[in-house]
């Protein structure tokens, strides 16, 4: 069955750099730096990436950072808590926009 997302396509990621190799090189070196141990450990960064991957709903990133988290010794309970954080922020961000809705109601109503 044909689908938009194919797991094998992840390996073709580098082809995206073909038309603008300089930008690609800069992005990749930046990306590599971001995930190194720093003020946050690379494990903490993998969990943040996993949570963000769920918010942006990127199947490639979800696969990559689930595996990366496992390889950093993270367990399923910890990964689940990370995506609950993502879900809470996403849900909270939706609800807090209710303030905008209320402002409009107030402005337009009697």
């Amino acid at each position: 069955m044909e689908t938009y997302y194919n797991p094998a396509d992840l390996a073709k990621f580098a082809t995206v750099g073909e038309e603008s190799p300089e930008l690609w090189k800069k992005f990749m070196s930046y990306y590599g730096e971001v995930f190194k141990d720093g003020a946050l450990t690379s494990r903490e960064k993998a969990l943040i990436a996993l949570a963000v991957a769920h918010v942006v709903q990127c199947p490639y990133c979800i696969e990559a950072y689930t595996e990366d988290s496992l390889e950093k010794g993270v367990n399923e309970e910890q990964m689940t808590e990370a995506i609950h954080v993502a879900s809470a922020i996403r849900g909270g961000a939706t609800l807090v926009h209710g303030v905008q809705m209320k402002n409009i109601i107030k402005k337009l109503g009697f």
Partner: protein
Amino acid sequence: MNQSSVIAKVSENDQELQLTHLERVNNITPFVEKIKETNLYPLKSKDIKIMQTNVGKVCNMYCKHCHVNAGPHRTESMNLETMAQCLRVLADTDITTLDITGGAPELNPHLPWFIEEANKLRRRVMVRTNLTVLSQPEYTHLMELYARHNVELVSSLPYYRDKDTDKQRGQGVFETSIQILRDLNNLGYSQKQSPLKLNLVYNPGGAFLPPAQHSIEADFRKELRDRHGIVFNNLLTITNVPVGRFLTFLHQSGNLPRYMDKLAGAFNPLAADRVMCRDMISVGWEGQLYDCDFNQMLGLNCQPGHIREFDLAALQQRHIELHNHCYACTAGAGSSCGGATA
């Protein structure tokens, strides 16, 4: 028995079929070709310091990652004569360490004698125990024997939580392991100022690489101390080797090409230089000699091929038998029976 368990049984025991599965992975550079890119080919033994003796395939457990395909259904067990031959070699050479593995070594009835005799030779004696066997009333006394003879214990505990450990090793294994670890601590194992050493072994719960040894060791130390009051010396991380039951799992779950690609992609020349087979010799339950326990399970004999023909000088010159499973020893931080290598 369903169809898939029939396939599992056949492939776990068939060494040729295992090698065929490993050879057929065509998305990677064959290991032998890869090692030729370094200056390590042909890979040679350096100095044999460790004799790792597999005293049998009988085990009380049936773990998913087991490269031995050990279990209660196995019957292979080293006899007294072969053990005596191993001891003669130890007496005649400067091999410093006798590393006893299995199966569950405790299920070999000659184990106590083997340990006592090796101890008389003043060798460092290690036993790889699965812990749970020591909870069975017939074997609990072995803990005291281990302590009396200063046996270094290496115990598998895949994770510091019950769920992950039990998924890999069987229901209730974590809890039983914790009880035994507590008993060992009470006997002096891993206590300050005690010479008794107890190392734990982490291995991944599936087709992925282990985390950095120091980082997961810190987690184990904290969790086991805070939740269970348990102490240990070191945590060793070991990469799952695509041999035996783990190879069957990879094959049947469709993970084999991906896992091999991962291992090959993480090839580390420094780890290749430090593979454990260069410092050890492995002895099978019938006395056959191999480069390591994995080659043993694949039937890749060395020359001379039997403990009764042991020739240290010749074996120290030997070329190691390499195959695609060797990528597990050279991936990332490396892997050996002593944990990470690079």
